[in-house]
């Protein structure tokens, strides 16, 4: 009875991603008892857990775009971190009207947002063009913006950090007065819900999976495979643009060197942790979202345990290796073989 239940539970696709997340949280419960404490100060909730969800927002948004790229093209977009910096730089450039630091918007706020999103879309379109039309390997194609992106951002800001010292510019990365939760949480959730609706209410989700599994067969049944691949890169660029806006708002400035630094790796990891195959095809968006929260929980955990920022990547790597190998087919095969052997001995 229990065994049958366990079997059913483990066959559920999101079982491992959720189990990983719970595992990380459990470690916290033991090591850092204050981890789950929530506190209300001036109408705003504080606590480690809020911090995790808040800080993970950008990663969640990136992971959504990355999941679709991985699913459709069997490759990864390694330029998302740099695209975040471009979007941030463009946004600040528009709002500051080209000045280095301003205390009031020089252009309407909405114009800055639109410019940032457009920058993200354009970067995505460039990647999509290289991958779908020029048939360049995704890793190589997106390497171009990975290296050039921050340079472009520097060009936009003319090598300086552009500050927007306007109170409501910080709202995106902080709390709207009267709302106890940070704004970015809502944006991340909104992106996930809207994307999910788009995938499920149109045939796009099916098309992406079909193209990822077999591009040629998909073309022959009438799907414009190249167009789908182009679209997912554009969408990934848009997601990077949104994420870039949030980070920029958090530091109310465009710091071309640091916005989204190394985020592409975390985004790819989130997709893998979510149980998605990096070879493309079948995907679960929710898995990637859980993966993103797991990574952020891990980072925050390490900080809470007093690990210094420089050493964090090492610990992160160890945990990631553990989680990813737990999910690998090879491990599952090896594990069942071991169990079979044990039975024989007994």
């Amino acid at each position, binding site marked *: 009875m229990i065994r049958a239940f366990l079997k059913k539970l483990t066959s559920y696709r999101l079982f491992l991603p959720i189990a990983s997340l719970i595992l990380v949280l459990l470690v916290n419960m033991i090591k850092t008892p204050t981890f789950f404490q929530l506190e209300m100060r001036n109408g705003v909730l504080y606590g480690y857990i809020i911090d995790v969800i808040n800080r993970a927002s950008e990663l969640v948004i990136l992971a959504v775009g990355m999941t679709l790229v991985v699913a459709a093209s069997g490759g990864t977009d390694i330029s998302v971190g740099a695209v975040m910096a471009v979007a941030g730089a463009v946004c600040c450039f528009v709002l500051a009207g080209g000045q280095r630091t301003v205390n009031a918007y020089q252009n309407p706020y909405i114009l800055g947002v639109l410019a940032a999103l457009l920058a993200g879309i354009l970067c995505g379109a460039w990647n999509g063009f290289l991958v779908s039309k020029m048939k360049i390997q995704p890793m190589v194609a997106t390497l171009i913006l990975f290296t050039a992106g921050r340079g472009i951002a520097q060009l936009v800001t003319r090598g300086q950090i552009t500050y927007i010292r306007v109170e409501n510019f910080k709202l995106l990365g902080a709390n709207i007065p009267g709302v106890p939760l940070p704004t970015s949480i809502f944006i991340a959730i909104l992106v996930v819900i809207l994307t999910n609706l788009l995938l499920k209410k149109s*045939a796009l989700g099916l098309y992406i999976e079909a193209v990822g599994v077999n591009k040629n067969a998909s073309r022959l049944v009438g*799907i414009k495979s190249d167009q789908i691949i182009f679209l997912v890169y554009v969408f990934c660029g848009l997601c990077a643009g949104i994420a870039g806006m949030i980070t920029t708002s958090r530091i109310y400035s465009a710091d071309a060197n640091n916005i989204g630094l190394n985020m592409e790796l975390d985004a790819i990891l989130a997709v893998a942790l979510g149980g998605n195959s990096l070879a493309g095809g079948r995907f679960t968006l929710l898995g990637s979202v859980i993966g993103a929260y797991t990574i952020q929980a891990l980072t925050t955990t390490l900080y809470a345990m007093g690990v210094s920022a420089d050493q964090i990547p090492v610990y992160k790597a160890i945990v990631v290796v553990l989680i990813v190998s737990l999910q690998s087919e090879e491990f599952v095969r090896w594990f069942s073989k071991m169990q079979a052997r044990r039975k024989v001995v007994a």
Partner: protein
Amino acid sequence: MESDIVLTMRHICKIFPGVKALDDVDFTLRKGEIHALMGENGAGKSTLIKVLTGVFDFDEGEIRLSGYDEPILNKSPQEAQKRGISTVYQEVNLCPNLSVAENIFIGREPCKLGRIDWKKMYSMARELLSKLDIEVDVTCPMENYSIALQQMVAIARAVDMSAKVLILDEPTSSLDDLEVEKLFTLMRKLRDKGVGIIFVTHFLEQVYSVCDRITVLRNGQLVGEYPIAELPRLKLVAKMIGKDFDDLASIKSLRTQKPNGTQVIKAEQLGHSGTIKPFDLRIMQGEVIGLAGLLGSGRSELARSLYGADKPDCGELFVKGKKFVPSHPIDAIHRGMAYLPEDRKKEGVIADLSVRENIMIALQAKKGMFKLLSRKQQEEFTDQYISLLQIKTADRETPVKQLSGGNQQKVIIGRWLLTQPDFIILDEPTKGIDIGTKTEIQKLVLKLADKGTSVLFISSEIDEMLRTCDHMAILRDGSKVAELKEDEMSQKSIMGAIAGGNQ
């Protein structure tokens, strides 16, 4: 071992999981002969070559090579080469950025004081190539020369390294007629020098213009070895295809309607450079037209150019009287076409998706991305075709890769029937499918035609075509060479047309 025999392979068996790829095959190669290895796809030609060159090991049998008293066992292509067996493949494996001489002597450069002796290398290369009448500048990078010349250099290299047995695996598929002739001159020259050459090809003309002897394989078994003079084309084709008539009764009586006179497809001088030469074709409503020809004769390519899977680059196509420029399959689908590709695995099934998704996907693409079929509709359609085609699957959500080959094929047929096409192309729909399902599919073709659907039917089995087609077109070496009306169609006339020549 007789003195003029270079290589003998005896009772070779090779078993892959589930298939006997080679079953008691003998092969003998004599000194100074060009020996063609013929057979349809899956006959075991490449497996035999790979066993010989040590790419695969074999399960039974022995290989003897002149100069060795014991049977030899090659564990790798390198070892085979050391013993004197070299292979030149269809894709030339040379380094395009290195010079001709470097390519010839790569890995065995003549050295002086630990450095490459360039002068000596160039002069050796020049000497080698001039002996074979190959005119190239040995200091130029390989990429400056045509594929044909590259191939010849590859052959020169292979011969220079070891000169007993030379295997040419489809060397001519990417060459034009003139280049082929040059290659043949080289082959004859090597033959006269005493090299035994094994020539694998699909092209009948070439076999008859250059070879001395033919060995035919079919379904992993040896059909026989014949001197070229004793095996005219017609007989060769018969041996390759095999004339095993199955004893199923004629099913043509299922047809009640004759095709009416409405033209569905009219192609005028349609062609795709490199794959299919310009052809004319007319297909009537409710007609089953068969395309026959050997593999690589352009059967699939003709079908693909009609469907827009490969964009034709010359000629005109009319669908139901309206001009149609095929550029993407979706355009063809909107005009009522459907295409079941030959390579089920690569181009047919979308392996990880479920049976339901595989069936509904073409109709979905036809309707457009934003008009998602409701889940209920999808399930109804799937169930309808699962029961209509008797698809054996655990569930409609089972990934299609878990189904057997025949059932996968039915899923794809169901996918296209769901779009209710006016014209359906079936490229080898019965390949690799058990005999019962085969008959079911043939019956289905006739039923479709009876309801007014036009069918383009491609098959390697002449028998199957005779049972289903109203009318046949014959292809040879990339061009449409003949059309046969129903009363002209017979096993003999079709094979004659496929073989061509004076036979």
